[in-house]
């Protein structure tokens, strides 16, 4: 996991190109292929992709915050949270008759599960991947007992709202676009956001700079849990609550975050990029179904693309992402840079 990012990171500074364009470019490419193959419904394809993508975007935004918190941070409990929040929100909504209460209940469940992870991470110094794994196991147990003999049905009003598409633009996509903007603003304009990015770049330095690292970490996991809970609440209304509602969202959420341009080693979040990558994934699924490829081909394609993008973009110049490919300037021997920067302590 390169948890300890080998020695120095050779970033060229804060001017980082536009790492988010690649997800959108890939999505556009897949869309074009669909258009060529089916010969119709170009606009509608986008519209339908936009009605599926928001779910992946919400959970992806949460995962993005966690990943931004620095090396080793990952939330593997999102899938269990989604499934559990689905049941709880549907139950709460049908008990109270209010969809809003249902959504809040879903978010609350996410926060609760994330609180378990947070306590384990901060209190017991359990590595995040294990802490969230354990919290996820607990959540999935609760899901199973809830699912047993579950009687409530999703709120019809909420479902109708999720399916609303005036002029072909899903209302949910608009709402989540606003949420994305809010997350971006959170990262740029708030003390918490700046603290998170600082912690992600260099935890020790952030701590010495007076950033309350523990509080920032806790907030981040709780936010991720809340967003996963929100995803679960919406998905359950859109599809139906089920015990495996969130299963495929774990790997996909990590993948969209990375393809979207967020640094996997932390310290740089790209909220817009999550959209591009999510659309790419959704359209890719559509394409595979349209062409009639098997799931084998679908997985090969997905994995191959992730690896291709990753190795092409490389990490030697982590700041540039893919963009660095095209302005390949001779790097002053990576090895020597490393030597000097690490050896900088010789000073004095």
């Amino acid at each position, binding site marked *: 996991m390169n948890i300890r990012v080998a020695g120095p990171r050779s970033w060229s500074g804060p001017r980082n190109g536009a790492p988010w364009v690649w997800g959108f470019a890939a999505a556009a490419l897949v869309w074009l292929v669909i258009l060529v193959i*089916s010969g119709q*419904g170009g606009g509608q394809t986008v519209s339908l992709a936009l009605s599926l993508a928001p779910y992946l975007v919400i959970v992806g935004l949460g995962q993005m915050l966690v990943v931004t918190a620095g090396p080793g941070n990952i939330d593997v409990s999102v899938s269990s949270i989604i499934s559990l929040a689905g049941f709880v929100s549907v139950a709460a909504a049908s008990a109270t008759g209010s969809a809003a209460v249902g959504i809040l209940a879903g978010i609350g469940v996410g926060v609760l599960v994330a609180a378990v992870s947070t306590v384990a991470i901060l209190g017991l110094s359990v590595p995040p991947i294990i802490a969230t794994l354990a919290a996820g196991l607990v959540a999935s147990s609760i899901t199973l007992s809830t699912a047993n*003999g579950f009687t409530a049905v999703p709120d019809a009003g909420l479902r109708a709202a999720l399916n609303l598409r005036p002029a072909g633009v899903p209302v949910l996509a608009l709402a989540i676009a606003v949420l994305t903007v809010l997350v971006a603003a959170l990262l740029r304009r708030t003390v918490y956001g700046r603290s998170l990015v600082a912690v992600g770049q260099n935890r020790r330095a952030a701590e010495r700079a007076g950033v309350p690292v523990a509080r920032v970490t806790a907030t981040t996991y709780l936010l991720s849990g809340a967003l996963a809970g929100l995803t679960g609440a919406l998905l359950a209304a859109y599809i*139906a609550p*089920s*015990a495996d509602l969130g299963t495929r969202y774990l790997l996909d959420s990590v993948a969209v975050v990375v393809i979207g341009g967020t640094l996997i080693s932390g310290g740089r979040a790209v909220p817009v990029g999550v959209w591009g990558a999510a659309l790419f994934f959704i359209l890719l699924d559509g394409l595979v179904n349209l062409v009639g490829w098997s799931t084998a081909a679908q997985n090969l394609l997905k994995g191959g693309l992730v690896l291709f993008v990753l190795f092409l973009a490389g990490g030697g110049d982590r700041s540039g992402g893919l963009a660095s490919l095209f302005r390949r300037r001779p790097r002053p021997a990576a090895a020597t840079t490393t030597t000097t920067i690490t050896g900088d302590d010789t000073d004095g």
Partner: protein
Amino acid sequence: GSGGSGDTAAADGAASGGDGGGKPFIALSNGFIGNGWRQTMIAKFEAAAQQAKSDGLIGKYKVVNAPGDNSATEQVAQIKSLLLQKPDALLIDPASPTALQPVIQQACNSGVKVVVFDSAIDAPCAHVLQNSFVDWATYAAKPLLEGIGGKGSVIVSRGVVGSQPEAEMLDTTKKILGDYPGVKTVATVTGMCDGATAQKAVLGVLSSVPKVDGVIGCGDGYGVAQAFATAGKTVPAVDFETNGRALSYWRDNKIDNGSVAVMSDPGQSVAALWEALDLLDGKDVPKQMTFPIVLIEQKDRDAWASVLKPDEYAAWPWTRDLFRQQVEAVKTGGKPVQPPIPSAQG
């Protein structure tokens, strides 16, 4: 949900030999508990086993579900630890049709009667109760194609692509489609017999296909209907799940276009219990038996819908008598038994 076990007395644990005075100890190992069908299957078994226990037919029973995703490795471990407890009969709903072969052989070798249900399995020593996938595919396609008048365009939503049952079902579906030259297949998607997956898969292709009159699926109609609702199109004829949620949706939205609900029978676990008891009694039971699929047509829909919880699947209420009738039917090659619809009873 009730507890996973019903011990009579902890003391007689390992000692309860089946042939002696002790009453038999029945264990059920289930490879996966993550969906409503499996949960219904377990619930039906537990109810029947509890009843059998109070009727004095069995001494104790135990249900073990492998945690996590459909993981054969977990189930192998679970079965091995079950064997330590020396059950008289072991019922298995396998996570995978092959993975359990060695451990089943091991169980047989230690004198345990093994009944595998819900899936064919390649274990010569076990007794197998399986579904008729040809029937399933036929029920899923025929009424639907009749319902749309034998012409128009359909989407085929395949199940777990590559699995033996899916191959069998796809063959049947193709054969039936061949009988309807007026019907055009405009897309084939992979729905995995799962509403959520099918919903996303169908939504992914909806914009790229012309008007759709029907979707031939395998118990994923609720999700497919949602996809059409999302796309703002009228819901075509689909194959619904046999659970309360799908049936109520079907009823409440008045989708009277030839849709049916068809799935395998979660009551098989009860049938498997009766088979195990018969085997322990030394009765002659065929090694392989095919049990009927649950088909709910529009006429029976409301009756079923009224007795099922949203996540509960329609199950045939096997009694020991019904089971024995079915065994006879299988032996003689007669017509399969048609158990009553629960609502008729109460």
